[in-house]
């Protein structure tokens, strides 16, 4: 379980202090997927970096299973937007990286990495370098890399933005299945309302800077739909989409008359 409690974050800028997050509180329970959505630049990614221990909140605390986060926590794994596969390591060497850092013996970490690779449909690509893989396969390998250390809390920072539309749905679906199978807590930061609705159990909408929690929606689609691809066709999906869009308060200014 991951909990943000009264989190505020600000940093000194050129024209005084920049306040990014103001008193943000929400939790992600075990076996729950929470999507965090908000206007561009509102501090969604900053929020995740506070959970990883890479940055410290100015006020408030982050808890993992009831313990205050003070630095990188072994129970937490993160899937980044950009690739985190080291280009000079083969797929299997990348997947076992987290275990290697923890000092696990070579034979056992290799065995676990190979099992994960087979499980995520990357069999036959163990010895390939990342650049030889397609975008979707690279994402799968990065996911295996993140999950090899068996985190109970999984953070995703706009992880599918660079994938093409079809690959994206397939990977989204895999991530949901993997997360549910392990009864993990997963927080996904996204700017894509449909992604949030199709994957999450709850959607937290942040306001513009300084970001506060504006709305929280319990959504049924992720658990009810047969797959991520089926979610948008479910009754009520469009309605939620509209409500979140309004909550985001993004103004679309018309181009005027196009001659």
């Amino acid at each position, binding site marked *: 379980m991951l909990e943000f409690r009264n989190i505020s974050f600000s940093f000194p800028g050129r024209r005084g202090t920049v306040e990014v997050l103001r008193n943000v509180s929400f939790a992600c329970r075990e076996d729950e997927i929470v999507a965090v959505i908000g206007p561009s630049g509102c501090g969604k990614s900053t929020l995740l970096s506070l959970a*990883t*221990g*890479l940055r410290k909140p100015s006020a408030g605390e982050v808890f993992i299973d009831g313990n205050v986060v003070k630095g*990188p926590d*072994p129970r*937490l*794994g*993160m899937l*980044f937007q*950009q*690739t*985190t596969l*080291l*280009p*000079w390591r083969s797929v299997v060497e990348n997947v076992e*990286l*987290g275990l290697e*850092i*923890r000092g696990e013996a070579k034979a056992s970490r290799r065995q676990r990495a190979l099992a994960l690779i087979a499980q995520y449909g990357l069999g036959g690509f163990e010895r*390939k*370098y990342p*650049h*030889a893989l397609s975008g979707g396969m690279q994402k799968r390998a990065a996911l295996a890399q993140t999950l090899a*250390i068996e985190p109970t809390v999984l953070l995703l920072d706009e992880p599918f933005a660079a994938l093409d539309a079809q690959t994206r749905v397939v990977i989204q679906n895999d991530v949901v299945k993997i997360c549910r199978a392990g009864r993990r807590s997963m927080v996904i930061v996204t700017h894509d309302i449909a992604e949030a609705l199709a994957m999450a159990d709850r959607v937290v909408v942040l306001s513009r800077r300084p970001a506060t929690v504006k709305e929280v929606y319990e959504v049924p689609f992720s658990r009810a739909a047969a797959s991520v691809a089926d979610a948008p066709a479910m009754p009520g999906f469009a309605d939620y989409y509209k409500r979140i869009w309004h909550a985001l308060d993004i103004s679309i200014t018309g181009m005027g008359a196009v001659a």
Partner: protein
Amino acid sequence: MNAALRHRLLVYLGRFAVLAVILIGTEIGVRSGFMSRLFFSSPTEVFGALLTQLDNGSFLPDLGITVLETLLGLVSGSLAGMIVGVVLPQTRIFSSVIEPFLMVLNGIPVIVIAPLFILWLGLGLPSKIGISIYIVFFAMFIPVYTASLRLDRTLVDALHVMGASRNQIFWKVVVPSSLPSVYTGLKIGSGLALIGAVIGEFIASRAGLGHMILYASGTLDTPALYLGIVTIALFAACLSFAIDALGPVLVPYRFSDEK
């Protein structure tokens, strides 16, 4: 015979033809008196000079000394450039203080600073190796330093989240990230190492290919002059081939282009 093989055969035949034209052309040109013996030498005369120098026992020591100076300069200069280039960016304040001094040093033409090395290290091998190290250092330092400053922060963050120590990040990300630029540095440095050694020999020396060329030039021994040039050219080519062969060892993933 397939097209690719025929193409390769044609290329080799073409190269052989060009070489033959040059050799036979100069041979005929010099023998006929069309090319003056003061300015040109025929291949047989150059070969004669080689036999003479082998006979009086000066050729192999001259070659050996220049090869030794070059290799020692290349190895030591590259190692120094690599270490400073990777370590300096680790402490930003230190690198910001030192950077302008290194850039000014780098701007000094080697020919200008070479006499100082002769003054410090004498007429023998050490001064030539010193000059060689001096230019090789910068050939290696600049690409490695630039690459280290542009390190992919996402990779560092990902390892931090996995719980890696500063030390682990240095060896698992920073050092491997620098290897492509180490290869670039070696390619540039191998040529410069030879230039450094020969420049040192030109300024003051008792042996070496540079000394041989200078002596031949002073005594108007044109065949020996050409012998020196051809020997240096062949040595430079060997060095370049050897460095190219290091590529797949240093950066194997750059050389595996299979999809």
